[in-house]
């Protein structure tokens, strides 16, 4: 994290720094820990991947299937949750939603995963010191865990606004607190923290924290709420989008993300190569949450 170059607003993707070529590597699994009933943290060993695994970049994993289940035709993209270049590990935090992630949750130490990555751009640090707000919905917490740690490590005051459906899908609060982030949690059913969504708490929290920068990852309604608030208040904001991703390296252009300011013949970014982290001012957030499998 020595050099972070922020793209100027309106000029396209975030963190467009020179990126090393991704690795295509079979990596030993260090651990695969159940954090909640359907949420896991997979840690694998790869010094080369861990070196450039900035949270917000992603890892494209070849998920197999358990006996009787159908193996996915595509790899599955997972945000880098955290990584340690010194120790050579990288983490993904994921929810089991289909046969690919079902298989992944069955993998343990002594086994290995086929990883392509890190891919995409990752979050970039604020240009000056100050209070920073991170906002997540559901499994969107994944890249923000390691990012919170890096932000506090760089001397920023971090406030996290974290939402989930219920207690059973709310993960990472301990991680955030050990990273030194102040956290506001909410659940749809009120089983933990505020009863409601992060969208409802967004404006009061923004007023209270007065952040110099916002980072967000989660379903489309959360991203849309954060985007419109940040644009209205003129706060720099980076959002990580979720998309169907095929090649992962910018070749097949399957993962189109609409530009907020399209031009003739150029209406879309590629989530995989231009993102998955974008300046909120640059992208149009469409649709509901992608139903992954």
């Amino acid at each position, binding site marked *: 994290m020595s050099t972070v170059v922020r793209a100027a607003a309106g000029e396209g993707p975030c963190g467009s720094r020179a990126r090393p070529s991704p690795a*295509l590597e079979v990596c030993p699994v260090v651990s695969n820990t159940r954090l909640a009933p359907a949420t896991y943290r997979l840690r694998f060993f790869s010094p080369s991947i861990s070196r450039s695994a900035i949270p917000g970049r992603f890892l494209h994993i070849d998920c197999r299937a358990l006996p009787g289940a159908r193996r996915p035709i595509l790899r599955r993209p997972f945000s880098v949750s955290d990584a340690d270049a010194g120790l050579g590990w990288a983490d993904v935090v994921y929810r089991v939603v289909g046969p690919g992630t079902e298989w992944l949750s069955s993998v343990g130490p002594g086994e290995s995963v086929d990883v392509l990555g890190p891919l995409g751009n990752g979050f970039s640090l604020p240009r000056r010191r100050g209070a920073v707000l991170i906002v997540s919905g559901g499994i969107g917490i994944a890249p923000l865990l390691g990012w919170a740690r890096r932000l506090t490590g760089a001397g920023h005051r971090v406030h996290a606004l974290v939402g989930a459906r219920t207690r059973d899908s709310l993960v990472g609060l301990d991680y955030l607190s050990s990273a030194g982030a102040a956290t506001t949690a909410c659940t749809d059913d009120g089983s933990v923290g505020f009863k409601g969504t992060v969208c409802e708490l967004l404006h009061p929290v923004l007023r209270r924290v007065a952040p110099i920068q916002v980072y967000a990852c989660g379903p489309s309604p959360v991203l849309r709420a954060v985007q419109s608030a940040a644009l209205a208040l003129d706060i720099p904001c980076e959002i990580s989008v979720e998309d*169907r991703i095929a*090649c992962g390296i910018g070749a097949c252009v399957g993962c189109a993300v609409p530009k907020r300011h399209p031009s003739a*013949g150029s209406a*879309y970014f590629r989530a995989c190569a231009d993102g998955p982290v974008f300046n909120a001012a640059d992208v149009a957030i469409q*649709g509901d949450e992608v139903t992954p499998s």
Partner: protein
Amino acid sequence: MTERPDMSVAIGGLKLRNPVIAASGVVGYGVEYADLGVLDCFGAIVVKGTTLAPRAGNPPPRLAETPSGLLNSVGLENPGVDAVIREVIPRIPRTGARIIVNVAGATVDEYCRVAEKLDRVDDVDALEINISCPNVRTGGIQFGTVPETSAALVEAVRKCTGKVLIVKLTPNTGSICEVAKAVEQAGADAVSLINTILGMAIDVQSRRPVLSTVFGGLSGPAVKPIALRMVWQVSNEVTIPVVGMGGISEANDALEFLMAGASAVAVGTALLRNPRAGLEIVRGLEDWLVSEGMDDIRAVCGSAKAVRP
């Protein structure tokens, strides 16, 4: 016994060091996959469908996974032929793989102007004329489903370029053999098949089609038996070489297409999950020839037809 078999094949006047081609679309302009070091192995790469003017492509979602298959509706997103010639082709790594550019358009004139411009680019070894894209409203597949319009297009493009012309055929027609014969007559040096099969998927939760365009092109192992049947049929009807593709994921699949009558094969969707697929197929074909005591890949072409049931 240490001598490796001869893997080279010819597509019209174009000699390839081996018969394994990276199919159009999946590998983009080759640059991204080259960074992974997985393009060096191919006999040729076919770079993305290129049109006269830049095309933004279709709105998302453009992808849907299906049983053993993938639906896409990218819609020929590309920066236009001038930008491709100026900015993209010079960046394609020259690894010994031939460079073939996939050419698409909405009118005969558009195909011709793209072909004329590419004709002047030394680094382009051949053109693949895409008369089969299912994801654009005009052009593409509209030419490729009817023998007469296919022939008229190929005849016009033939006059614009001296480069090897491969015509990519669509399976979305009842007359693929007639189209193949018509484009051979019109001056094609080879045909490639199959492009994707028109299909769709519905998200039962939202009760909406998954793809923004409702329909898209199906590729992957799901289409392989259909592609193989069409390669068998078309290679019976034409004397020009056939490039076979559709769901090829491993060396055994490639062997099936060669035995069915293909002179070369292309790999597409398989590269998405397994970027090493090209390398594995080239090695697998070589190993198979050695294990069979054969010294020339060309002897495999059409060999399944020699045995009559």
